[in-house]
């Protein structure tokens, strides 16, 4: 048997191109597929945003219908076809097995299937854009009766049905992924890797998967009812003479999901930030347990806040008060997490790599975003701010900064691991600063427009007397947005160029990071660990330890497989 052991080195086997690159069950390939598709959809969603921002700066550029459609698809694409596939499908798939010392996910074939369902959902979404009758244009929140009433409004037609179908498939894909992530992390960790030694990124992915699993289900029920309304003429949400449905029920079902959904995106991004920050500050997380417990608490609370999106929708005022209280309360666990993050930076010997710059910017701007949530969570002030640009600024400062900046930080950080090459650091730093400047130029004015009472989703400010004087703000925002997108497009060129021709980085752990993925070769081969198995000996962030040359202790080490492997193997 020992001969078999000695020769069982790195796995080599013949695979066709199709099996290896397209229909692979390898989690890293699947993760890259999600990443690429997510990036492609990001370009599409970003372009739509640029187009309607141009209209806002120069009204008349688009028709009303186009404007509504672009706003709708921009929102839907960014949430469902960019943020989720990149943060969960992409980073989650690539990193989770590596970080827990596994060779792949628990259900590799299901994993492959989940990607292709996602791909099909993207295709259907794009098709829905072009069908006769028009694309869906009723806002990414798909509120009925606008979305439910065929014939009576522009919003309901074949485009709507395809949009909902694409959404359903995307949900199915993410659910499959969630089942995989949860099962894998619970049952396939390396020896010595107890739950409280998991990297925070992994904790975040699990909590996000659980949140998604439990929150999306009522929305799926609601989407089925909406489809029945459109196709079979039921009236779950439609209101007509003699047939009374309840449009507010849709809002409840949607936001019951919608609120945990933003944390589904937020948590993995925070996880990436923790990984990046600890590595480049050479510091452990200030209080690991606090972050884990705060995250779980925030996850549970996130199920109790949803109707703060409906304060002015005519819900029962007593409900509104209850939800306002829970919404303010949920800021507490997040504040705790951010304080821990800040204290993790503090006193560290910070190395300002591009990843770290993006992480710092994300951290700072997320604080702004979070603070701006307070006037929205308090029901009294929300009555003024609801559906104004204040909300737009708030969610861009939270979602965009967290989802996009963390993603980019993560890309710079794990690029050497995934591709065995590096992205040019100087370019990365310029990229970070330009993104920071242009992003704020685009998003910050939104707060002031909101304070001035400028509603969101309006086609043009020029049509209203009290808004006309803010037209220059729209022009500023549009110019910033265009420059922002241009910067990212340049980055994408550099990213793809670096994959094939970037400076080589053969060392498995160029950043001297502690977590398990840095023990694998760069890039990791199929089945990750070859004839070794990772064994974990300590927590995930043992930095700033004794030793002059070595200021960190890796979480685990690779143990050569012998026959049999016992618990005392060293």
């Amino acid at each position, binding site marked *: *048997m020992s001969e*078999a*052991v000695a020769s*069982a080195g790195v*796995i080599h*086997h013949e695979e066709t191109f199709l099996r290896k690159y397209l229909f692979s069950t390898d989690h890293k390939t699947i993760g890259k597929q999600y990443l690429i598709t997510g990036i492609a959809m990001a370009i599409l969603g970003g372009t739509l945003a640029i187009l309607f921002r141009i209209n806002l700066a120069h009204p008349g550029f688009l028709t009303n219908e186009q404007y509504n459609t672009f706003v709708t698809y921009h929102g839907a694409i960014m949430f469902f076809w960019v943020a989720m596939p990149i943060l969960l499908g992409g980073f989650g798939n690539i990193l989770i097995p590596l970080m827990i010392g*596994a*060779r792949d996910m*628990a*259900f590799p074939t299901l994993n492959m299937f989940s990607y292709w369902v996602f791909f099909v959902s993207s295709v259907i979404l794009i098709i829905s854009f072009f069908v006769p009758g028009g694309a869906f244009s009723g806002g990414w929140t798909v509120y009925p009766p606008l979305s439910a009433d065929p014939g009576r409004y522009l919003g309901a037609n074949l485009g709507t049905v395809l949009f909902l179908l694409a959404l359903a498939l995307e949900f199915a894909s993410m*659910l499959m992924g*969630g*089942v*995989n992530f*949860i*099962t*894998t992390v*619970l*049952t*396939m*960790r*390396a*020896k*010595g*890797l*107890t739950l409280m030694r998991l990297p925070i990124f992994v904790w975040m992915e699990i909590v996000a998967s659980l949140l998604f*699993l*439990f929150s*999306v*289900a*009522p*929305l*799926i*029920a*609601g989407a*089925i*009812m909406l489809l*029945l309304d459109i196709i*079979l*003429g*039921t*009236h*779950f949400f439609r209101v007509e003479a003699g*047939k*009374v449905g*309840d449009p507010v*029920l849709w809002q409840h*079902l949607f936001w019951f999901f919608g609120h945990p959904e933003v944390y589904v995106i937020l948590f993995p991004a925070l996880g990436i930030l923790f990984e990046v920050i600890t590595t480049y500050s050479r510091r452990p997380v200030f209080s690991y347990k606090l972050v884990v417990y705060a995250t779980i608490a925030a996850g549970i609370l996130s199920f109790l806040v949803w109707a703060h999106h409906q304060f002015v929708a005519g819900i029962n005022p007593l409900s509104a008060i209850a939800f306002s209280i829970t919404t303010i309360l949920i800021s507490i666990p997040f504040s705790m997490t951010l304080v821990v993050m800040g204290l993790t930076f503090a006193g560290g010997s910070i190395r300002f790599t591009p990843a770290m710059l993006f992480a710092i910017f994300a951290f700072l701007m997320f604080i702004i975003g979070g603070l701006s949530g307070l006037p929205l969570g308090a029901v009294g002030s929300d009555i003024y701010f609801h559906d104004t640009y204040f909300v737009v600024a708030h969610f861009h400062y939270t979602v965009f900064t967290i989802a996009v900046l963390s993603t980019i930080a993560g890309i710079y950080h794990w690029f050497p691991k995934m591709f065995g090459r590096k992205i040019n650091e100087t370019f990365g730093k310029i990229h970070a600063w330009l993104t920071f400047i242009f992003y704020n130029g685009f998003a910050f004015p939104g707060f002031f427009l909101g304070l001035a009472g400028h509603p969101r989703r309006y086609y043009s400010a020029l049509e209203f007397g009290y808004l006309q004087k803010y037209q220059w703000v729209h022009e500023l925002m549009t110019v910033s947005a265009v420059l922002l997108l241009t910067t990212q497009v340049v980055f994408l060129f550099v990213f793809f160029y670096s994959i094939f021709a970037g400076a080589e980085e053969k060392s498995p752990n160029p950043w001297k990071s502690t977590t398990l993925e840095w023990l694998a070769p760069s890039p990791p081969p199929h*089945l990750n660990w070859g*004839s070794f*198995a990772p064994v974990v000996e300590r927590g995930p962030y043992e930095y700033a330890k004794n030793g002059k040359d070595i200021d960190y202790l890796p979480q685990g080490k690779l143990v050569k*497989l*012998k*026959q*049999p*492997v*016992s*618990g005392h*193997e060293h």
Partner: protein
Amino acid sequence: MSEQLRVLDELEKEEYESVPVPFQKLGFWVFLGGEIIILGGIVASAILFRLSYPGWFKSSEHTNVVIASINTMVLLTGSLTAVLAHKFATIRQWGKVQLFLGLTALCGFTFIGIKFIEYSREIHHGFLPSSGIFWMFYYGITGLHGLHVLAGSLIILGVMLFLRKKKLVEAVENAGLYWHFVDIVWLYIFPLFYLT
């Protein structure tokens, strides 16, 4: 590839850190957890509407209790055969496993057949999904449930075929779990639309 995996499996006899649940079972319960709320969401909506719609009981008189009672028995019997299949799987009597899985699938298709007949009668009488609040939930929920019965029956058939390649106890158990879940949902749908 499987050859190399088997070698690796031999090498890594030291187990993973894991919660004390076989991963196939855990994965399936994670999935079931989501499914519970999907069907639960639409049932909750039905309950909400029912509480505010005084005409519900009058409409429900038009559903056929006899047909639905037969269907209830069919599903219950299928539950029994499904769990017996599991029992025989745990003692490795694979012949009996296939038999009971087959009976379960038969129950499933019987249920669907009876449902078709039932729907045809009701549509013939003019009760459509657009006929009112009761009917839209009736068709919506029983239809969705029926699709789940179909899915459950197909899963059972799938496991029957899969067992030829590999005798996996977990597969039989999971297929049974899905069936029981669908059965439990019916236990609430049945009174909701037929008995009250």
